């Protein structure tokens, strides 16, 4: 038990001391995961909106595929991205392997399905007649669609948080494609693995506390949004 207490005490001292090694890792983590989520939003929101609103043959399969994306094993994603970016892979010429770009790519593949699946559920929770009512008041198709998304915005914000939560805490994919290079591709999760192996429990624990704080913030946001859902709009009828 003393090991834990000592490690936590040292971790807090490290955090308060503003250790550059520690904050460089945190900064890189936020950069990589932030960019991956941003790209995931750019791809996932249009995809989820389209799947949520369009009707076409094979839609059920497409929805199932997106939902399957929620359970993608990070290691498998890492493997596919590794092969894709390796010298012999289709995108090997980019020279991204063991760079932050490779890590962003892998985390994008993990984040996009989360964003798409939550967006899909969010747009479907808004009654389709709402768009028709907007059209009946003179809105164009785009204006009606934007209104629809605006009505689903709380759930869409949950998509952001869920996507971020999914990638910030994963280790399998980033360690495979990033290589955990000091000062380059070392992020919180890969550093925790390394520092634990090296017996530097205080550093690992400090990084763990930061990761927990980030994950807690993201999940607290999701919970707040979910709690707000029952107070959504009400129909006109009494």
């Amino acid at each position, binding site marked *: 038990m003393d090991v834990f207490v000592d490690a936590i005490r040292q971790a807090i001292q490290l955090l308060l001391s503003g250790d550059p090694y520690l904050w460089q890792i945190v900064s890189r983590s936020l950069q990589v995961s932030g960019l991956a989520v941003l790209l995931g939003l750019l791809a996932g929101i249009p995809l989820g909106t389209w799947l949520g609103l369009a009707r076409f043959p094979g839609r059920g399969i497409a929805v199932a595929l997106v939902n399957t994306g929620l359970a993608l094993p990070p290691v498998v994603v890492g493997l596919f991205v590794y092969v894709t970016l390796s010298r012999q892979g289709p995108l090997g010429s980019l020279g991204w392997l063991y760079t932050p770009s490779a890590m962003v790519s892998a985390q994008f593949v993990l984040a996009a399905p989360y964003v798409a699946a939550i967006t899909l559920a969010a747009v479907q929770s808004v*009654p389709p*007649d709402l768009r028709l*009512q907007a059209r009946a*008041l003179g809105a164009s198709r785009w204006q009606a669609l934007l209104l629809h998304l605006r009505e689903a915005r709380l759930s869409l914000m949950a998509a952001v948080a869920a996507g971020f939560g999914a990638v910030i805490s994963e280790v399998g994919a980033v360690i495979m494609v990033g290589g955990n290079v000091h000062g380059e591709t070392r992020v919180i999760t890969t550093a925790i693995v390394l520092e634990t192996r090296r017996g530097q429990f205080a550093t690992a624990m400090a990084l763990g506390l930061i990761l927990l704080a980030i994950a807690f913030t993201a999940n607290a946001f999701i919970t707040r949004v979910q709690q707000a859902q029952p107070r959504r709009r009400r129909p*006109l009828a*009494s």
Partner: protein
Amino acid sequence: MDVPPESRIEALLRGEGLLRTYEGRRVVDVDWIEVRTGEVLALLGPNGAGKSTLMRLLAALEPADAGRVLYRGREARRSDPEFRRAAVAVLQKSYLWRGTVVQNLEFGLKVRRVSAQVRRERVRGVLEALQITHLTEAPVDTLSGGEAQRVALARAMALEPEILFLDEPTADLDVTVRRGWLADLERIVRHAAPAIVLITHDPGEAFALADRVVVIEEGRIVQEGAPPDIFEAPATEFVASFTGAEFMLDGEVTETREATLIVRLDSGQALEAAGRAEVGGRVRVAYRPEDVIIGLPSSSTTSARNRFTGRVARLHPQGGLVRTRLEIDGLSLEVLITRHALEELGLAVGVPVVAQMKATALHVFPV
């Protein structure tokens, strides 16, 4: 100089050969329908008759499988900005967007790029007209059902449309809220737009608010006319039944006179009714319970052509009225009387009474 009503009226919107099919079922099959400037037109029919779908076709909110809608002689399309501005609809289950009442009211004005000053003036104007200025900054999720209906109408009225479609504006409201809202609608509706298309399943609402009523049954127009015409001369059994008529037994025409005919009911009684039918033809006779006059056997004779003696079989209070069933030698008649009349006549189950009906109060339909 007064202009005759007919020459003041022109067709603003016209549907021709409109057909809409869902899963093989013809939901709308209308050869011809017009919406005219200056009128309140009611599309009246039971739930599932296709009137909301017809409204969506006329408002170009949904494509027809066949036929076309013309606005001022030009094909009406939602992609046409002029038609979008002219034709506005309040859907039956329309929703208010998140935010405040004023934000909702400004939505359509913003998509029309109306200036902020004009927006403020329009919003204030409609809120005053609908007497809901106190709700201006209210979040929509704090509104009652009746308030929300008013806001939905205000949101459409603020756009000053040329044609306003109102899909079941009183549906789903409880009785007291509905009564007040209907009274307000009577006051407001003529100022809401130059032409109003009201969709309703309630004949009372249609007759109270509309200048012209189109009755729809299974996607087809079965009768069209002014409310008194529909009420007093229903064209089909469906219209008669839907607008509140009760049916007597079937019978056979035994004689025709100048403007009336004599029907021998299967229960044995002879009736004189206004209408035309072949002698020997089978017919069904309908009447409205409120058109039957009842009195005690000692009552003096009236001008009514039909007079039957029977007994009270049942008394059933219905709001301020009492629905009374009379048994007349195998024939049952439903009659609506006031509580005052009930007390004055001393009616109770088993009391002998005389029922009288004018020939013009009976509607005869060939079977």
